[in-house]
């Protein structure tokens, strides 16, 4: 039954299928065969699946993709990512090689195939979602490609009909010194073989250089007349690039065909639900992680606390002070953040009451008090109260949901401000005037690495403290990894700036105290 929905995607594609149908001279759709573990997802699914499978498979894949994205946000190395992802992949999206004894191969591959196409539908609607989907699907493909059995991988690559031209022996001899230099330069990590030998053993292929832009950028290929000469072991990066560009094109086609999908009202809610839930699962922040010993009160927000705010909250706070007002999403984002840093409900109500000083008590009680209490889980339905209200927003949520409209101050300045206003905020609000940092932020923004920009600013503003925390072993590497939540930004900033006070991280406090004493003596 779902089959029809795929076929409705694109008339051209249907033609392809119809054409095939004729070829097989079989009125029923042929079951898709999966001779390879890896898949470029060129052909849409044709067999029927249940609505339950439809949803469950998509959710399972989404879990994997979201976790992969989280790994990249945390700057995990490829090896760390592999280790981290292994149990998840085994559980939600196993994909065994042909040599495996598993009897589940066809089912695994079908699930992989179908879940990919379901998510295409869910993520084709906006350019943002398409870009994110392409990025994480590419990460998943690369992960699997690297882990694949060498021979099976080669067989799979054969099927892609990538018009790679083999470099003839004659040409290889003619270019031997250039190729040797390229191979060695690209291989600085260090095969010890002598270069001539390396060239002999390496198989080279020739492609249009535009098919391997990242290899060109790093000078890891030899170029002549617009052709890149690629050594065999670099071909992975080209297969991956090919995967990305084909997926990009396919998603655009899907996007154009999407309106027609509305005809099936059973799928639309599922798809909407899927795309809305594409948030990093563990980027949530429990409000229990407030800081021991810090005095978090309404009164202290201006005086001591706001110095530790990330740019988004700093901007909300300044807007609030300037206008004595914030619009709905701004209040929500800010209230939840304040809740996350440990501001009690009473203090929070006091804070908003004082901040909205242009309105009457009556208006405040009628229009605003309830929302704050609701966010804290003080009122509302059972589940809201049981769950303690809403969780503070993660960077992912702030970056992707409810982009600010006219008059709204919420969102992420690194993403939602233009460069000029962002620079103004960083200089005026955050005290960042270092050219190198601002240039870095500019590049991060251009590359859409908003969390990198934010972390860059954090590291700059706290560089002295971070160095000390590292050198003295006060904070572990995991306590200093990439920030993906505004409340983590606050907490880490607060701890770093108070390294000498009693609010140091619990685990190291005794050890720290000793050092502290020694220093006192030195003085």
């Amino acid at each position, binding site marked *: 039954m779902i089959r029809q929905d795929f076929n409705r995607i694109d008339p051209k594609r249907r033609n392809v299928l119809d054409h095939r149908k004729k070829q097989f001279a079989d009125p029923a759709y042929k079951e898709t065969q999966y001779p390879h573990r890896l898949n470029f997802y060129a052909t849409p699914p044709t067999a029927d699946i249940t609505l339950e499978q439809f949803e469950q498979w998509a959710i399972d894949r989404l879990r994997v993709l979201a976790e992969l994205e989280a790994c990249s946000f945390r700057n995990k190395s490829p090896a760390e990512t592999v280790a981290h992802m292994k149990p998840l992949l085994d559980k939600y999206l196993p994909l065994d090689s042909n040599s495996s004894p598993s009897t589940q191969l066809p089912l695994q591959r079908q699930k992989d195939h179908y879940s990919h196409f379901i998510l295409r539908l869910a993520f084709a609607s906006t350019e943002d979602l398409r870009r994110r989907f392409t990025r994480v699907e590419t990460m998943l493909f690369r992960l699997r490609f690297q882990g694949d059995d060498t021979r099976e991988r080669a067989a799979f690559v054969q099927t892609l009909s990538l018009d790679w031209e083999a470099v003839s022996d004659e040409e290889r001899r003619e270019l031997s010194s250039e190729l040797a*230099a*390229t191979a060695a330069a690209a291989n600085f990590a260090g095969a010890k073989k002598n270069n001539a030998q390396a060239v002999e053993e390496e198989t080279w292929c020739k492609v249009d250089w*535009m098919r391997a832009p990242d290899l060109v*950028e*790093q000078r890891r290929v030899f170029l002549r007349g*617009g052709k890149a000469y690629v050594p065999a072991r670099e071909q992975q990066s080209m297969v991956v690039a090919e995967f990305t560009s084909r997926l990009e094109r396919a998603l655009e086609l899907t996007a154009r065909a999407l309106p027609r999908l509305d005809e099936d009202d059973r799928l639309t809610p599922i798809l909407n639900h899927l795309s809305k839930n594409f948030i990093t699962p563990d980027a949530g922040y429990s409000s229990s992680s407030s800081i021991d010993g810090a005095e978090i009160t309404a009164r202290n927000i201006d005086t001591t606390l706001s110095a530790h705010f990330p740019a988004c909250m700093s901007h909300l706070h300044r807007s609030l002070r300037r206008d004595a007002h914030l619009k709905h999403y701004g209040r929500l984002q800010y209230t939840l953040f304040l809740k996350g840093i440990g501001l009690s409900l009473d203090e929070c109500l006091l804070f908003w009451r004082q901040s909205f000083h242009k309105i009457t008590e009556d208006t405040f009680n009628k229009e605003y008090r309830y929302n704050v209490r609701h966010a804290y889980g003080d009122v509302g339905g059972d589940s809201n109260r049981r769950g303690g209200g809403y969780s503070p927003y993660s960077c992912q949520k702030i970056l992707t949901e409810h982009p600010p409209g006219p008059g709204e101050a919420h969102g992420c300045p690194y993403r939602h401000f233009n460069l000029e206003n962002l620079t103004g905020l960083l200089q005026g609000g955050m005290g960042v005037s270092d050219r190198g940092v601002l240039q870095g932020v500019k590049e991060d923004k251009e590359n859409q690495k908003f969390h990198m920009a934010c972390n860059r600013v954090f590291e700059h503003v706290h560089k002295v403290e971070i160095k000390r925390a590292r050198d003295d072993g006060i904070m572990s590497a995991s306590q200093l990894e990439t920030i993906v939540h505004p409340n983590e930004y606050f907490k880490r900033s607060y701890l770093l700036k108070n390294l000498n006070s009693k609010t140091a991280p619990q685990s190291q406090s005794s050890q720290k105290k000793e050092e502290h004493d020694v220093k006192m003596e030195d003085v």
Partner: protein
Amino acid sequence: MPHSVSTPSETVPNATEPEMDEAAAATTAAENADSQQSEDADITMADDETPTTAATESDDKKTDTKEVKLEDLFPDEDSDDEFPSSSRPTQVKQEEMSSSPEFPSSPAEIGASLKASDPEVMRSFYQRLFPWRYLFQWLNHSPTPTNDFGHREFAFTLQNDAYLRYQSFPTSDLLRKDVLRLMPSRFEIGPVYNTNPRDRKTLRNLTSFKPLSKELCFDIDLTDYDDIRTCCDKANICNKCWQFMTMAIKTIDVALRDDFGFKHIMWVYSGRRGAHAWVCDKKARTMDDQKRRAIAGYLEVIRGGAQSGKKVNLRRPLHPHLSRSLDILKTHFQEDVLEEQDPWRSPEQAEKLLQLLPDRQLNESLRKKWDSSPGRSSLSKWADIDAVGKTGASKSLDARALLEAKQDIVLEYTYPRLDIEVSKKLNHLLKSPFVVHPGTGRVCVPIDTRSLEDFDPLGVPTVQSLLQEIDAWKEPEENSGKPVQDWEKTSLKPYINYFRAFVLTLMKDERDVKVKRERDDAEALEF
């Protein structure tokens, strides 16, 4: 000067997102600005993209609260083109510009006494000398108007420094008319968009307004060589330091042709102390930013700012592009750097050299030797490195490391210093060829790479001299009967001839490719 445009929506002053402009929202004056902006969104000031009309008040405020001005921060501009005037940019409504076609005065009397940026000088130049037809054909890739020209963005810098973006013209004649009406001191060329840039606001949403193609551009400026040139600094140049430009053009040009296979590459003098490259092959024009970044990365060797120490740190063996570059550059290093620039003559300067060498003991010996003979030339000092090295002054001397450090130094002192941002972005704007540099009056002429060594930037004609040449021209005895155009009467002629030949080859290739593509398209049924 190129203007970086990150996304089209950001460049339309915050008409759509006024809340983003914090400073503007802070003042009530800005609210008026917002409403006016939406009508006047075409007119933005150079560089900071701030609306200029009623926002002046908030604008001033903004400048006050900042420690660093935005335009000072990001080094992706060609400061070659700064204007002598320091007056604040003000906007002049288009209607207020004089559009009455006054009868032009005699070029000679204009040329002799007036500044290059004078409206009368500019008018005569645009009317009588500017190669409109070839510019059109160059950008249009065909003799009959297409979207390649019609959807192309032009940006005008007016005499009062106001900056007009998103101008576009169906034909070269309409471009010429508007230039004569507005008399910009210069204009820039941006990308071809998917729709007419003037219609961008009628689109359903701004994100569907997209740049499709633009030439791959390079920008090299002698100010980036200030830490290694000794003859001049800042805006000044002479034939000695122009040699850096000669070597840069040689190195980049050969890489673009031999490695990337591009054929239609035009180098243009920027009017004062730099050069631009326009790579016009169709394949180059349609590259996305990722591919532009790839080329930029491939060609970029000098990394790091003033505080970064050793700027070239290459892996060994050298990539073929780098060993070829080194071959091209080492003669220039001897002659144009060591002999002409003599960059390490004083002890302080020599210290810079020593910092780039790897062996402490060897450095000690060299320092001692140089201290005892003050004023020793850079040429001798460079030779000393090997000579002293051979005497065994350092027991731990690693000959290979020393050789590699010396190669790195040669590259640091000769390899092209690209303003790489210009090359990375499809939607960067770059000054048009053949406009006049308002500071020097020199025309931004193409540089013929076949006789690159002969190019003399100080001999490039100025607009004033050209206008005089028109008047001084005498009809030859033997008249061919063909009417002689004004530019043919001047020393601009060889440059325009070169440009014309370049454009013709480009158009011819384009036509051949088009025919082939249409044939292929008819056959392929793409997925």
